[in-house]
């Protein structure tokens, strides 16, 4: 089996983002960028499937600027076999990402595409489901557990209220949730090896996909700031404050 893993380069999850004073977006100059944390989980899962002998090849793909190549390299150091960078400096919306990925799928014919459930910059939680619809493939979103079950894929999903298990015919789309696995750190020898792995460079035009945005940004603003309240001395003081304020 072959697996395709799309990875996105995003602002690091530890960075406190700042809205630009002109309200056109957030300040990305000189901030630390990393692989979307959910995508690390996707890569890890693909590598584990390969280690278990279920998967023979892992292809990593990223859509983004030249620097997204570093994100692909990180995934290759974790155990990916080769990469595809679809290079663009434009902001690409999930629908357009899904269309590009559908073209990559047509070329590569993977059995499974494993994506993150959500990119922590746009917080869209859309791309995997959109790709599934464009390909008319089944989807197992918010995966908590993955099992190959004969010619099917069993996906246990994190849903409101608990867990749900679905069985998907292959090929299929999976989007991963936080509890699926704990991603590894790439070892130094693997980082060195990854430098020699192939990364093909493409452009959206190579795939004939129109990536022009459907959404126009009117403005990006700071959320209302919540002010710190007061510290209370002890439990008795807390209870009396809550009672006075009519909360309990």
């Amino acid at each position, binding site marked *: 089996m072959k697996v395709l893993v799309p990875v996105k380069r995003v602002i690091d999850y530890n960075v406190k983002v700042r809205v630009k004073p002109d309200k056109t977006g*957030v300040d990305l100059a000189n901030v630390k960028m990393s692989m979307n944390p959910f995508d690390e989980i996707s890569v890890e899962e693909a590598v584990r499937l390969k280690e278990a002998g279920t998967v023979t090849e892992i292809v990593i793909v990223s859509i983004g600027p030249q620097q997204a190549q570093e994100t692909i390299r990180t995934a290759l150091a974790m155990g990916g076999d080769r990469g595809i960078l679809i290079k663009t400096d434009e902001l690409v919306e999930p629908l357009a990402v899904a269309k590009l990925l559908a073209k990559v799928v047509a070329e590569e014919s993977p059995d499974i595409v494993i994506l993150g459930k959500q990119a922590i910059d746009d917080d869209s939680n859309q791309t995997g489901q959109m790709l599934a619809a*464009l390909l008319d493939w*089944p989807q197992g979103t918010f995966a908590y557990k993955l099992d190959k079950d004969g010619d099917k894929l069993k996906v246990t999903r994190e849903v409101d209220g*608990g867990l749900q298990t679905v069985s998907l015919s292959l090929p299929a789309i999976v989007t991963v949730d936080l509890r699926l696995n704990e991603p590894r750190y790439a070892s130094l020898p693997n980082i060195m090896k990854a430098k020699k792995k192939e990364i093909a460079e493409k452009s959206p035009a190579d795939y004939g996909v129109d990536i022009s945005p459907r959404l*126009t940004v009117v403005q990006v603003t700071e959320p209302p700031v919540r002010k*710190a309240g007061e510290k209370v001395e002890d439990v008795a003081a807390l209870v009396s404050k809550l009672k006075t304020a009519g909360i309990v």
Partner: protein
Amino acid sequence: MAVLVIAEHHHGALADATHKVVTAALKFGVDVDVLVAGENAGAVAPAAAKITGVRKVLQAEGETLRKQTAEAMEALVVPLMANYDAVVIAATTTGKNIAPRIAAKLDVMQLSEVTAILDASTFERPIYAGNAILTVKSSDAKKVLTVRGTSFAAAGTDGSAAVESIAAPAGPFKSEFISEEMVKSDRPELAGAKRVVSGGRALGSADEFKRVIFPLADKLGAAVGASRAAVDAGYAPNDYQVGQTGKIVAPELYVAIGISGAIQHLAGMKDSKVIVAINKDEEAPIFQVADYGLVADLFKAVPELTDAL
């Protein structure tokens, strides 16, 4: 012009989320219909027909729709969209699973977790874990939205819409429901609760989480939540996670116990009316958003608080 709302329901009961989604849909200023699909749709449809402002309820029940799998819901909703200019669904795990499939089939860029509808094509939504608020204009002919329940009040229940049955899509689909393991609880449902008590990594074990957090929650009649760290460590079930990638809550009272206040956690609870934090580290970031902060060892303070209430 009309807007279609996809109802959320569980075990034969209409979820409160649906009433909030109707409020959001009515902001388009046109007719609003509600689709009730899946297991027990027939039993749930009358409740949907009572939601104030609803024109018509569409009800679809059948084997393929039983668990509202995304593949079957796509097949049901996409043809219906010939009659609608927008479809609105709650930003729950069900809604998030289904909506992007419909959007992609309609060639529409979805708007996720919408918190305000300014006009029929302009929307507000949080990005970067709620650290920025994006206002966007959509140029798509049809709109597909998931909406955040905490941003819209529930619509009333004095309506009397007509109910119409429509056929479930013929299968088979490439995805099949196998089983589910639902957490049983008599406490209020987290997303809509008026009070929430959440525990973090500091609880140290599932047993301590139960021993310390549950009695306080029960005393307050509160739902129980948790930080990601507490869920990852197995102290609390997955769907207790409050935050950027878990549940968004905005209760009247949120009590954060042994939670540091990482941005990802704050994203899920900082719109709560009153926040109480109990943490032994006076520098913990949670205190920057807390109305009442108590610097104390939770193992001592929380049982004391439970007794004092």
